């Protein structure tokens, strides 16, 4: 999968490139809108990440010209401006998704995955990791042979973690996708932490290996090894 990052802030562009490459994408960088436009017209990419605040022609203009040229690949907009008008304008101009700086990297990865899949793949009805099993239909969870009772919220969190199995899930992602809360705030972060703790107490504490891991400063991940 080839991704083009159009971003004039070199440090950020490089960080995004490194991050995406470590997730096995092939990444090119354009530091100006014109370069990005040229590359997208000449070469085949599967996705573009476009910054709005660019020197010269800004992201909106590039986006509009790209869509006029018939470039149909998914485009993810990045911006520092978190106003509704900007968001609406971006999506109206033909962007597929929108991310406000500063964003959590797992969030960017999740969006990229979602865009490349074109929609969320329906979760498998049954998943397992090591000896932890989840059944979406029956809404049941088992670790080994013992059945684990979860609250509705805990189940939703676990289900979400299973969908993103092996990848870091940030608090932002949980707030948006599990709590459906757009206006994120400090109390909610605390709420998420407490729920995660409860969940961990139930599915991990009496067992080995520990599956629900906290990645300090990033979020949570459901995986078997502790890298």
């Amino acid at each position, binding site marked *: 999968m080839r991704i083009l990052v159009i971003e004039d802030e070199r440090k950020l562009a490089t960080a995004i490139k490194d991050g995406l490459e470590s997730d096995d994408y092939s990444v090119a960088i354009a530091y100006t809108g014109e370069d990005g436009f040229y590359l997208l017209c000449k070469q085949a990419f599967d996705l573009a990440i476009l910054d709005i605040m660019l020197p010269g022609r800004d992201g909106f203009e590039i986006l509009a010209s790209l869509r006029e040229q018939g470039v149909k690949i998914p485009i993810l907009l990045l911006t520092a401006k978190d106003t509704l008008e900007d968001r609406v304008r971006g999506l109206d101009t033909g962007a597929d998704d929108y991310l406000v700086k500063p964003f959590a990297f797992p969030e960017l990865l999740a969006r990229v995955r979602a865009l490349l899949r074109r929609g969320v793949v329906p979760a498998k009805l049954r998943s397992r990791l090591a000896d932890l099993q989840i059944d979406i239909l029956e809404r049941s969870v088992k670790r080994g042979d013992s059945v684990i009772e979860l609250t509705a919220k805990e189940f939703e969190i676990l289900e979400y973690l299973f969908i993103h199995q092996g990848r870091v899930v940030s608090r932002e992602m949980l707030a948006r996708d599990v709590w459906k809360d757009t206006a994120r705030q400090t109390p909610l972060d605390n*709420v998420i932490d*407490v729920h995660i703790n409860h969940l961990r107490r139930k599915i991990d504490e009496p067992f080995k290996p520990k599956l629900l891991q906290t990645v300090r400063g990033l979020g949570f991940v459901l995986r078997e090894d502790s890298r």
Partner: protein
Amino acid sequence: MPVRVRLPSAKSLPIRTRLTIWYLCVLGTVLLVFAAVTASVLYWQLSRQLTRFAIQDIETIEGLLFFDARGNLQQNEDYHNHAESRKILERLLEVISPDGTLLYRNWRLSTDRLGGAPFPAEGAGGYSPRTIHIRDGTPVLVVSRRHVMGGRPLIIRVGYRKDTVSAQIWQFLTASFTALPLALSLIAIFGFQVARRSLAPMVDMARLAEQITAENLDRRLPIANPGDEIGHLGRVINELLDRLDLAFAQLRRFTSDASHELRTPLAAIRSVGEVSLQGDRTSEQYRDTIGSMLEEVTRLTSLVENLLTISRADAGQIEPRFSVFSLRELVDEVVSLVEILAEEYEQKILVTGDSGTLVRGDRLLLRQALINVLHNATKYSPVGGKITIWTGVSGSDWATVRISDTGPGIAAEHRDKIFQRFYRVTEGRTRETGGSGLGLAIAQWSVLAQGGQITVENAGEGATFAIALPAYKS
């Protein structure tokens, strides 16, 4: 004093000059009109007086005329030796027969005539007063009287020179016009002084106001006389300065508080990073360092987000979206979200009151306010404490949520300030419980923006926050 007032440029003159010019114009006009009217009245009265003299005179003359031995008409001049008035001496006398033959004229008239041939009915049954011009062009008032003497009909004509009347009028007008510039000058000087003196406080105010900038907003304008219009203006400006001063002080404090709050996580990031680079660490330690730095970044991010929310709110960029919804449902929703935090500390949240209250407001903003206040309550209630939420209508039509905790309460001196940005009751609060110091400020703004009010008081054990919005009545 000729004063030409060109309107466009008049506006650029100082008010005191304009006032003075107005005085001058008005008073000058009044004086001119007064002089003109007085002169006319005087002229009219003098003319009437002259006519009366002439009539009296003509009757006297009737008795003084006689035919001498040769049949020539004569007048007894002796009478004038004891003349009682100057007017009589000035009179011109002519006696003619009805066919126009000159019978007598006095020495003052000499060779002149008082009109030519008599007109029909001249002097019959009246005095026929009229004005004619004698040879040297002087206007003369002439009255006539028919008289029969010794069987002969006569027409007696008496004339008075009217130039004496005009001379008096001119004298009056000359005197008036000589006095006018003097009067106007006095008025100008006096008027200018009065205007200048009444406007002087304003000039002082302007001079001082020019020196007031953001740096010395504590200065106030001097108010000479609080009762008059200028004093009122000064008071209004001073009140405006009060408000500006307060707003600036708040802004300054906000900026310095915000910088301080931003600096704290930045300092942590820097120290953690620098310390970590001072020696070789295991990859596990580096991981920990980076994680710790990212935690601070998260804190910075949420602080910046809150600051942005506040600045957008201040700039009026957040428009409340009104709808009608159930207060209790929203409270239940917020409780179910925050409940888990209370459970961590074995606190109980109890919701009571009326569950049917409808409210008109912005649901998202109110939700935010409730979350912040409730979160605050869980932070300050002790382990095992209780949080009581009451919903219902208080007063006549305020849909109210009261959130009471069992914490230490808020001392009276903090109650006004608790909603201020970054205000903290105790300086030494840890960041663990401290939060960003913006939660209640945002809650207050959210409530005020939709026309509600938020108050805090100590009731019973802890603090009670009350959020009230206009109730919805179908």
